[in-house]
């Protein structure tokens, strides 16, 4: 087994990459912006500050949140293939968004469109339902939670199809576009909305660092070492769901990032959550911002939703991981 990098070096390198992407990515695109023009008045400055920077910042946050959440789910369920949407979070969010498009088009509250708020509510509702079903059985089991998640996902998919059938063509188009997941139309408001939820999620993972490390050795071992496993599960589940719900509300579902990034970073920095969680926040953010840069440049001037791109990348990567795992075993 390869030794992981020294944690400080690894986090330092990821931090540098994060900063490079944050400042570099807004300069690139269908129309290049020279560094010198950024601080002068003009179209270039407007493109940089108003259009691209918020989008890159949201991508950095979104990728970080998705990866950190993926890490949380993978440890919680001791399943390397779990990802933020395993528990029906995406399904619930999509159902909320679709209902808002169909029945309350254009409405909004607290500065956010109703679609966003409805999908936030949907994500949390789905998680609550799954957790509720699982907790009714006294000693919650990992398998029960996963199966409940699949059940909720199937139900929401069916309901989404039903709502789409009731909708007109324009609404259906909006719904499909929402479900592709993208960062095309964002401003600083969305960035500021996602930021606190993401930091809260990261803080909960870091505070539970020892407990999550123990969970790697199995639930029974963790419990016998003094971890209150049901409470830990509830805490992490809640934090991660809020983080993902808030993100999906403004960016739509963006798949596979939460699966791929923790996998790659584990090989780089090892398994200690104290290092791995911030590494996911930085590395996942840089990854998604670069993916979004590719999404808005490869087919320029067309602006591909980044969710489509990550899904296109993610499927083959997922299969490759499975094959490599099998070969190693």
């Amino acid at each position, binding site marked *: 087994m390869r030794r992981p990098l020294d944690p400080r070096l690894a986090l330092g390198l990821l931090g540098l990459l994060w900063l490079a992407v944050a400042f570099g990515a807004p300069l690139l695109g269908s129309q290049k912006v020279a560094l010198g023009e950024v601080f002068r008045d003009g179209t270039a400055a407007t493109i940089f500050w108003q259009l691209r920077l918020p989008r890159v910042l949201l991508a950095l946050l979104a990728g970080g949140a998705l990866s950190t959440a993926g890490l949380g789910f993978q440890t919680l369920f001791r399943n390397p293939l779990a990802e933020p949407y395993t528990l029906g979070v995406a399904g619930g969010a999509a159902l909320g968004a679709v209902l808002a498009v169909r029945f309350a088009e254009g409405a909004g509250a607290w500065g956010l469109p109703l679609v966003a708020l409805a999908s936030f509510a949907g994500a949390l509702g789905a998680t609550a339902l799954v957790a509720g079903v699982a907790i009714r059985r006294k000693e919650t089991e990992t398998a029960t939670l996963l199966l409940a998640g699949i059940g909720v996902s199937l139900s929401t998919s069916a309901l989404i199809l039903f709502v789409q059938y009731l909708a007109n063509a324009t609404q259906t188009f909006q719904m499909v576009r929402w479900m592709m997941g993208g960062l095309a139309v964002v401003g600083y408001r969305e960035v500021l909305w996602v930021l606190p939820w993401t930091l809260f999620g990261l803080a909960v993972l870091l505070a539970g660092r020892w407990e999550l490390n123990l969970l790697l050795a199995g639930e*029974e071992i963790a419990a016998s*070492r003094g*971890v209150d496993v049901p409470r830990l599960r509830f805490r992490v589940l809640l934090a991660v769901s809020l983080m993902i719900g808030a993100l999906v509300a403004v960016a739509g579902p963006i798949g596979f990032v939460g699966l791929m990034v923790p996998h790659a970073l*584990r090989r780089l920095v090892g398994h200690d959550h104290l290092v791995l969680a911030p590494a996911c926040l930085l590395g996942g953010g840089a990854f998604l911002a670069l993916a979004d840069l590719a999404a808005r440049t490869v087919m320029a001037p067309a602006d591909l939703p980044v969710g489509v791109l990550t899904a296109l990348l993610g499927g083959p990567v997922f299969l490759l991981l499975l094959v490599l795992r099998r070969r190693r075993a």
Partner: protein
Amino acid sequence: MTERPAEPVLAARGLVRDEGRRTVLGPLDLEIAERECLAVVGPNGAGKTTLLRCLSGLRAATRGALFHRGRPYSALSRRELARRIAYVPQVRPAEVPLTVREVVLLGRFPYLARLQLAPSALDHRAVENALAAVGIEALAERPLDELSGGERQMAWIAAALAQESEVLILDEPTTHLDPRHQRDVAGLLLRLHRESGATIVLATHDLELAGLLGNRVLALSAGRAFALGAPGEVLAAGPLAVLFDAPFDAEISAPAARLRLAP
């Protein structure tokens, strides 16, 4: 040789454990004295693992109560309990992406403050002591998944020792091990019991091991105490034939009870 102080280290009073609608354990009364080694035997499904989980505090009593030195488990937090009782379960996850040292260090969790960034020198010393006690210092930096079954068992026992608890509870510590590793683990437990004065509870199908280690043997049948007493009394042909519903040809030789299923 067995000392009998007035207050037992662990006690179960009227312990009953239901799983679903079925009673899998009890009612059972049990006292475990300081420095005692209690071996629990019985056929599959007799409630051995459930008893150990209850004694470890991993499962709550449905009725009755459990006590550590007179204090009910319900008055102790999970971490307080983990500082008093260490448990080595039988079923363990196949893929644990940690090295032996990391696994053993996790045993220090009940002593860590919630936001403590790094383990203290005291924790590291406890890890070294645990590795040395088990004799696996050389394996410390190896990933657990690369070890043989026997080495892995040693690592899990070291992880339990790092908890520095006065009671050690082990579920089938020698199952699935080859004869040499069975002997190694048995020798280790014997040493821990005789030299470090650990209080040990172990469940096993290996009647020889039960006779070798146990000061007393508890035979469970359908969740109840079928027999409880000295190894020579419980691990005799008569009670065993009834317990396992099979004829036994027992030859008890001190200190080990050598037993074989009759042909």
